[in-house]
Structure formats: C-alpha cells, structure tokens
C-alpha cells in the first residue's frame, strides 16, 4: 500500500522531470519587454498604428529606468501587437501596461475594437486608464519627454491617479468604459489628454472629458464642465471651487477645497412625465481668501455658501442643457438610475431613451457646507 502510494508520487516526479524540458509558459523576466503604455492611431498602410512604450531598466549599480517607443502597424490591434515581434524579437508583455491613449480619429470611428481585445485577452488587464487625445495624434503624447517619471506612461498614470485632488478630468478604466458602453441608459465618457505649451515645450496635459455616442467620440467637455459632470455622477472626491464673491460691489475670489461630496439622483415619475432630481451635498473648506472680506464670520459664510451653491447649480444646469442640446447622450447615467429605481417607467421609455433624455427636466439642488477655514481663523488684514 505504502509502496504504491509513494510510487505514484515518484511517477509524478518523473513526469515532471520529463516534461520540464518543455515548460510551455515558462518565461524569464528578462525575456519580456514590459509594455508601460500604448497609443493607438490610424495607420498609414494598415488600419491601426500602435505606438508601444516599453519600460526598461539598465545599468548595474545605479540602475536607470528608461523607456523606448516603437510603432507597429496592423490590421487589428492584436495583429499589430503581435507584429511587434518582427521588430524587436521579444514578445510584448501587457500585464503591466498603465494607460491606453486613443487618438481622436480612432475614437471617432469607434472604440469597440480596442476595448474588445483588451477585455478578451488574458494577459491584458481591464484596470488601466483610457484617454482620448484631443490632438490628431496619440503617438505624439507618448513620445514627449517626461518631467517627473522616466516613463511617460507611468507619468500619465500618476496624473490620472492624482486627479482626485483636482477633478478636472474623469479618470476611467477600461472595464468601466466597457460596462458603460454596454449598459443601457448611460453614455460613455473618458479622460482627455492634450499637448499644451509649458516652459516653451509642448507637454501632455490631462484635462477635460471625451464624450461618446455609442462607441464613437462626438465631442469634448472642458475642465469646468468636467467638474460639473463629476458632481452629477457622484464621482467627485476632491478639487477646488474657485468662487468669485461679490460684496459691496467689489469682486474678490475665494478658493474652497472640496472634502466630501455626495450626489443623489432621483427620478420622479408623475403623469407619464419623467423628471430627475439631482441633489448635491458638498462639504468644503476655505483654503484661500484673496482679499479681506470676512467670509468666516457667520454672515459672510452664509453668503459665501449661497454664492457657491448658486454658481455650482448654474454650472450643472448649463452642462445638462449643453449635453442635452449638443450631444444628446445621457452621460450622467440618468437612464441607469431610472432603470434601477423605477424599472416600470424605464421599460416604457428605454427604446427611445435618447430622445426622452433630450427633453428631460432636471431639478438641481445644491447644498454647500463650509466646514473650516484651514489654519487661519480670520482673513489677513491689510493695515495702512
């Protein structure tokens, strides 16, 4: 008994050793070229042109991270990715990629091809950021010199991560956008990236939001609109509200830092009419007062809150109007909310949601609550 049991172990080890010669998926780390990020453009000869940024470390003691960008063309994304072998010998390793940048042109023709491969393949991961380039070329963005990180893609990834404190773009990961594309009653959005002049050099800046209709890009929102969008989507985790406040005829600015914000979207159905109620509750802190208004005392603070509430409200209403008129895509997810809360009402309108959305009435309510005034308890005083 014991003998046979041991022997089955032995057989297994023999098998192991015999088969060890062909460990199929065995690959050493140094044989991989680690993809850090990828930019997708329209190809010149083929359908797609893939610019892949590869991260490398070289040097022995003082090792240095470097990046290299190569451009490959192919009929499909996967074809292009495999074509890279004919350029560099090593197979590209996708699991550590951080960003995908899609050029405007490609985004306008449709995202599905790209997203499908990214979600289907086992090596690629869904939890990476997707950006749409405002300029013509996505490759340009990856090939610029990076400022803080050695690898451009990592830098863009950091930008997206730290957006939380800024809220001027909507970071979105591939699986999220895939879900949104598939879901009924919500339009897809993604972050936008553009080249901007800074210190005489053109560097990429992540700012604004790309709006999709179906899977096709139809336009962009600017930074402030993005903030309003994030408010409505309840995706806002931070950022600054710079408010102009008018008192006694003089205009001065106050910066409010957003600590916490909670948005509730509630569909109201009455007499076949669908109305959305958006109520925002924001907790902010005074972080900067340009001037000498006393907005800290009760009276001034109330005023400040009111100003902030109103400006936020108008921003949101403007955005909703703009989106309804210009794009006609429900990027706020009102439809989803309706489906979740009032499935019956949704059933009746789901087939023509796009049209219904255009005329939907939205009731925006904003409540701003000033929590503190940072380190100073009073505005600075200017003597004579």
């Amino acid at each position, binding site marked *: 008994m*014991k*003998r046979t*049991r*041991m022997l089955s*172990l032995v057989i*297994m*080890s023999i098998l*192991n*050793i015999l*088969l*060890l010669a062909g*460990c199929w*998926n*065995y*690959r*050493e*780390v*140094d044989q*991989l070229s*680690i993809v850090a990020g990828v930019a997708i453009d329209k190809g010149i000869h083929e359908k797609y042109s893939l610019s892949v940024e590869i*991260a*490398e*470390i*070289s*040097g022995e003691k003082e*090792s240095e*991270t470097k990046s290299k960008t190569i451009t490959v063309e192919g009929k499909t994304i996967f074809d292009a990715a495999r074509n890279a072998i004919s350029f560099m010998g090593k197979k590209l*390793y996708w*699991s*550590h990629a*951080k960003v995908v940048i899609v050029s405007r042109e490609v985004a306008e023709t449709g995202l599905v091809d790209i997203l499908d491969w990214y979600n289907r393949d086992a*090596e690629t*991961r869904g939890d990476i950021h997707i950006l749409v380039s405002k300029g013509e070329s996505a490759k340009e963005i990856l090939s610029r010199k990076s400022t803080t990180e050695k690898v451009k893609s*990592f830098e863009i990834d950091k930008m997206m991560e730290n957006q939380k404190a800024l809220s001027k773009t909507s970071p979105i990961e591939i699986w999220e956008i895939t879900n949104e594309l598939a879901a009924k009653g919500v339009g897809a959005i993604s972050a936008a990236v553009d080249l901007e002049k800074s210190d005489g050099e053109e560097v990429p800046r992540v700012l604004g939001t790309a709006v999709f209709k179906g899977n096709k890009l139809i336009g962009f929102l600017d930074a402030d609109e993005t903030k309003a969008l994030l408010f409505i989507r309840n995706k806002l985790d931070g950022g600054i509200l710079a408010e102009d406040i008018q008192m006694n005829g003089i205009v001065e600015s106050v910066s409010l830092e957003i600590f916490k914000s909670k948005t509730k979207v509630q569909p109201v159905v009455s007499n076949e009419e669908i109305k959305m109620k958006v109520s925002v509750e924001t907790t902010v802190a005074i972080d900067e007062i340009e001037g000498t208004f006393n907005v800290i005392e009760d009276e001034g603070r109330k005023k400040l809150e009111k100003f902030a509430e109103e400006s936020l409200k108008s921003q949101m209403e403007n955005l909703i109007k703009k989106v309804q008129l210009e794009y006609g895509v429900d990027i706020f997810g009102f439809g989803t909310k309706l489906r979740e809360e009032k499935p019956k009402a949704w059933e009746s309108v789901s087939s023509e949601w796009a049209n219904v959305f255009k005329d939907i009435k939205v009731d925006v309510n904003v409540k701003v609550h000033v929590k503190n005034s940072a380190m100073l308890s009073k505005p600075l005083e200017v003597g004579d």
Partner: protein
Amino acid sequence: MIKRFRRKDSTDRKGRQTDQKNKSMTTLKESLEENIAAFQNIFSKNETLIIRRFQNKYLSAAKCCVLYFDGMVNTEILNENIIQPILSNDLTDKISSINLLEELQYKVIVSNNVKIVTDMDQIVSSAVYGDTIFLLDGYAKALIIESKGWKMRSVDEPESSKVVRGPREGFTESILINLSLVRRKIVNPDLKFKFREIGERTRTKVCICYIEGLALESIFKELEQRLDKIQIDGIIDSGYIQELIGDAVFSPFETVGASERPDVIAAKLLEGRIALFVDGSPFVLTVPFVIAEASQSAEDYYNSYIFASMNRLLRMSAIILAISIPGLFLAVTTYHQEMLPTPLLLSISASRQGVPFPTVVSLVLMLVVFDVLREAGTRMPTPIGQAVNIVGTLVLGQAAVEAKLVSAPVVIVTALTGILTLMNINLIGPIIIMRFFLLFGAAFLGIYGLIFAFILVNIHLVTLRSFGVPYMMNLTSVKNHNGQDVWIRAPWWTMTLRPKIIAAKNLVRQTTKRKKGK
C-alpha cells in the same frame, strides 16, 4: 525488492549469533582454576581482562579470585570493599565455612549490589558492562559485584536545545543517570521503567518509561512489539531505534520524537507519551509523535504565554514559508509576472540582465550551496565554522551576483529560506526535501504546480500515523482543549485537559480552573 534483501540479511545474522552463543555455553565448574581457564577462553585475545587471585589470611578455604576489565571498574571499590575485607579480616571467627560464598556476600563484601549468578551469559555481559566477577574455589557459582567506574560526561547543558529560561541539565550517555534525571522530576510510584536489551552484539540497555494510568496500553504494546522485531547486531545511538520503530519508512518526516532535555521528556510523559531511553545516547525517544511537537520548544512553557504564542506562531509560519518561498518566487517571476508590482518587476528584470542560467537552475544551485555551507559549518570546529560562514555568505554570494552567475533576488530568497529553515531545527530534513518538491512543482506549472505539490505534501502528511495517532493531529481542532498547544501555547490555567488520543486514559490535567492567581 527491499523486503527480499532484508530477509536474506537476517538469516545471515542468525547464523553468526548462534556461533557466538556456542562459545559462551560452558557452565561454571567447582574448581576455581577451571573457571578461570574458562573465562580466559571466552575472553581470549582480550588483554584488558584482569584476573586477581587472593586468599584470606586466616581461612585457607577462602581462596578466591576477581575478574574485571581494566578501565571499566572503580578500583577503589575493588580494593577497599572487596579485596581488602576478604584478604585481611579474620574470617574464621565470624562465619562458618559451610556456605562460604553466601556468607561472604552477606557479611564481608562491602558493596551496594551483589548477586549470586550461575548463568554464564549473564556473568559475561555484566563483566563486560563493568561489574566485577567474584569466583570462589569450590563453588560453581559466581558473585557479580557492582563496581562500574568508567569515566562519564557530567550532566551539563544540552548543545542541541539551549534555553534562556528553564532547567539547564541535559541527558548524558549513561542510561542510569538519564533515568535518575527524569525520576527526580516525577516523584511518583506510577512512573514505571521497563528494561530490555537490544542488539545481538552490543547488548544495549533500553528502558521503556511511562506513567501508569496516563499512557495508553495499546501504544505501549505496539512499542514492545516493534522493539521485539528489531534484530540488529548493534545499537550505538537512539537514532537506530528511532528509525527501526518508526511508522513511515519512506517519509522524510520523523514519526518518533527525540529530545536531549529531561524537562521535555518529563512533560511528555505527563501528557501520556511513552519514553524510550537508550544507553549510550543522550537523546531520549518519545512516542507517539505528532508534527505539532516539532515546532514546540521547551521554553514556550516557561515564558509568558503571550510571548510564547508569538514565538510559536513565528515558528509555525516559518515552516510554511521555508517550504514555499523559493517555489513562490519562481512561480511569480517565471509564470505570473503580473502579480509583481511594476517597479519590482522592473528591478528583478534588471538584475537578471546577463545572467545565463534560468531562474530554476540558479535557485536550485543556490539552495544546494546553502545546504552545503550549512553542512560544512555544523561539523567544523567553531573558529573554522565562522570562517566557512564568512566565505560562504559574503564572498560566495557577493561574487556570484557580481560574476552574473545568479541574480541578486535569488540570493536574497536563498538566504531568507535558509534562515527560516533554521528556525525549526527539528524539521530541517523534511523542510529541505519538501522545499525542493514544491520548487519543482512551481517550475512545472507555476503557482498551480506549487499548489498541487502543496496538496500532495498534505496528503502525505495526512496519511502518516505515529503509533496509530494521526501525525497532523490537533492542527485544526479546537474542541476538548486539543488545539491549545499547537499554533499557540494557551495559558496554563486554561490547559485543564491533556491532548486526547495520546492520553485517552486520563484527560484531566488540572482539576480546578484558576485565574488571576486567586
């Protein structure tokens, strides 16, 4: 095949044994000179045999002789307590010469242990063991007078398991001293000792020790049966017996425990285990043995239970880590690179630049080198051992990395596993073997292979039994106080029951549950 060899061997050995028996089969005669000649015949070509003839000054019938082996006896006892009283006292007025031998035994010889013996075998073996044989002319009997007096190591701190807190005595090579060390700790008539001899040629004394009323009879019987089956010419150390009575012959895991510390043995006896003392070995065996014992240290029971539990947990997790770290590293770096954080992946990738060997090969290589160094270090005299360590760790490791033979992470992994292995000194052997097994699993199928290998190891462990007791006993049980002394060491006031199965007869360890020293 193995069986066949064994059978052949044993018949061979029997042949030799009978041969030896014939030689000593002569019986004692009445004539002194004939007896001496017989002994000279038995111990021919043995020049350590010393024969001293002497006679009482007053009683000519008291013509006698002592035989002993040079260096084995305490000559003081011999001179002052045996030879002198017989030689110089006036025996005529004290005793009758009718039953002279017994008279001498009762009235003259000053010794704590004197026996009249006629069996030649017994005489020979006691003489060899350091007793003195006393022959008297006209009697076909001999006296065996205890006079053992060879040099022995004193009771000092055991090298193999030192403690900061706790008793510092360790077993010696003498079985009697060892027994006394345990006896002193358990002052109770229920502590039983049962002697037997094992080894056709060495006649090694072995003592089964247990506490009546605690130890399971079935285990005791099983142990006796297994000891009966041993047919070997010599036992030099308890290790022989450990292997001969062990359950799983093909397993790297020990199913018989061994300890050098009397306090440990006493504690195990109190838990209902059975101890086996072997003469000539400072390591006392205990059965049954479960894997949880391998990571228990004597000190756990003397230190604060919180600290002890932490140490215990560290040791237990060290076992798991020492087995799995190389495999895990290999699996992650060669199959599942996505599991690594990106910066780490980049730096591992950089460190592997220019290294020719695959990671498996370099890992196996380094692990073997580490074991070579360990093996070399343990046998070396201390100063040289240090040198070996320095050369091994610093020079070899550093140079290997610099010469691009292996990558730096591999060295780190090796060193880490090495240290983790050494945390459980009792399990070094199994850990090293299991580690390679898991490593090959990982090399074969990545983390999945590792998990398969892990399950196989588990299956093996589950099938193991030590004297009928499951080897993995209590590892996951919490009922009936069974799990109190496995992953942690519970406070003493809660350990009111002994582990089941081992001490199924009497589970109660403490009758009252006392807390807070009230």
